[in-house]
């Protein structure tokens, strides 16, 4: 029964990892960009929420009203101001630029907020739980998982049923030709990054409510998101959710064996999946 409980908790944790991954997946899908600073942007969102909460006294979930649009704006400006200048055939420049950004964000946070661990206080939500059969499921993990499902569904719907999604797919297919249709690539990329960072804002706030955070933890959040993307298969958002769940379960089961093994177990399962199914479980089929 303990094991089953670990699996259930791991599944719910997977929702958070899917949220880490969704933005990564979206920008890779639209512009083939891998953003090394993604994890640090998640942490930045958590700190933004912390500042909003401290300044206004509202709850961290309400802070989303400010943090989500703020991160979206940061994403758009970042893309148009810096990243668009290095987009191209060569993957090295965007990789190194986002790596530089990661270091800058991390150290700027260190400067502004110190290395002390912080936490977002969501009051009763953190301790509330629902009893289902023999299992007590925390309300926050349940909420996180539900948010992940809604976000993935929303992104999927946006991608396949809206004019913006059409523009994303067209630009992803053929940048030149999309430009001929009147789509400005720089703007489309900016919007994709804005949406990715809006999702990142949600992920950052839920992370900050769940655990304490400090400026140095961005790297491992990037890695968790990345592992979820690869396990699920590139370019498939539902696959990314499944990937997050697999990673979450691996970590929960690992922690059950030995608390020191939690993170390692996740990495090992990822490497094992890479060895046996290098394209992930649900690779994109439509090209």
């Amino acid at each position, binding site marked *: 029964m303990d094991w089953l409980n670990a699996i259930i908790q791991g599944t719910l944790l997977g929702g958070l990892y899917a949220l880490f991954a969704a933005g990564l997946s979206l920008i890779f899908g639209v512009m083939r960009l891998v953003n090394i600073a993604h994890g640090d942007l998640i942490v930045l969102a958590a700190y933004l929420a912390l500042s909003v909460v401290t300044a206004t006294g509202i709850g961290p979930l309400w802070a989303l009203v400010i943090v989500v649009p703020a991160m979206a704006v940061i994403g758009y400006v970042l893309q148009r101001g810096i990243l668009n200048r290095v987009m191209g055939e060569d993957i090295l420049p965007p990789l190194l630029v986002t790596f530089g950004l990661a270091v800058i964000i991390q150290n700027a946070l260190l400067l502004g907020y110190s290395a002390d661990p912080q936490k977002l206080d969501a009051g009763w939500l953190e301790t509330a739980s629902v009893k289902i059969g023999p299992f007590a499921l925390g309300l926050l993990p349940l909420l996180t998982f539900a948010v992940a499902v809604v976000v993935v569904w929303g992104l999927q719907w946006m991608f396949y049923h809206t004019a913006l999604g*059409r523009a994303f*797919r067209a630009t992803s297919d053929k940048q030149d*030709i999309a*430009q*001929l*249709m*009147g789509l*400005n690539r720089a703007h489309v990329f900016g919007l994709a990054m804005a949406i990715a960072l809006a999702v990142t804002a949600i992920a950052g706030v839920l992370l900050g409510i769940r655990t304490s955070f400090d400026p140095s933890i961005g790297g491992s959040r990037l890695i968790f998101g990345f592992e979820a993307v690869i396990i699920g298969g590139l370019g498939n958002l539902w696959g990314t959710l499944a990937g997050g769940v697999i990673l979450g379960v691996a970590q929960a089961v690992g922690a059950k064996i030995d608390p020191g093994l939690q993170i390692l177990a996740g990495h090992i399962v990822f490497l094992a999946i890479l060895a046996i199914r290098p394209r992930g479980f649900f690779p994109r089929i*439509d090209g």
Partner: protein
Amino acid sequence: MPEFLNILNLDAHYGDFQALYGITLHVDPGEVIAIIGANGAGKSTLMRSVSGLMKDGAEAIRFQGQKIGALRADQVAARGIALVPEGRQLFPSLSVEENLILGGQLGRKGPWSLKRIYDLFPILEERRHQPSTSLSGGQQQMVAIGRALMANPDLVMMDEISLGLAPVIIKQIYEALPGIVGQGMAAIIVEQDISKALSVSRRVYCLQEGRVSLEGASNSVSREEISRAYFGV
């Protein structure tokens, strides 16, 4: 003569390689011109320059009185120039209908709508929800033409629309052309098939090694003139 499309001394380069040398040509409002020439003569480069995919010659290209040479492709499109690119270049992740809708996404006013495209090419309506890549070559070419028309452009440029298609299909597409360009829309038809190009155009330009080697009325240029301009013999 009102100014429509005027190109004056256009050069174009790919890195160190010069592809166009001082091209000068013009299109009048509502006029259909043909551009012919052998492979590598610079026809597609000319299309890329006019459409904004290549940004040479900021001063060289004027459209409806404005310099458009330095504009991005999306800005050129917004001013009313649409390109049917060589090799069709449909978006594989988009359905037939989505490809068409994307073509019209700038929202320019004009006679063309989804319904009119489907009237022109009824087969596309049957296939509207299929992925564009599942269509035959001819049907894909219809989508590519429809996609450009959906922009309701003032000038449409068609780059080698008969390339790789069966003669029956080419015939079908060319029979549809007068209905397309007969509505005040100007057109540049780039072709290797000389007789097809001459049959639909009022004037013709021949390119050879990046230069204009012949210019004349389509119904008066002679075979000899064309082959001299075409092959340089």
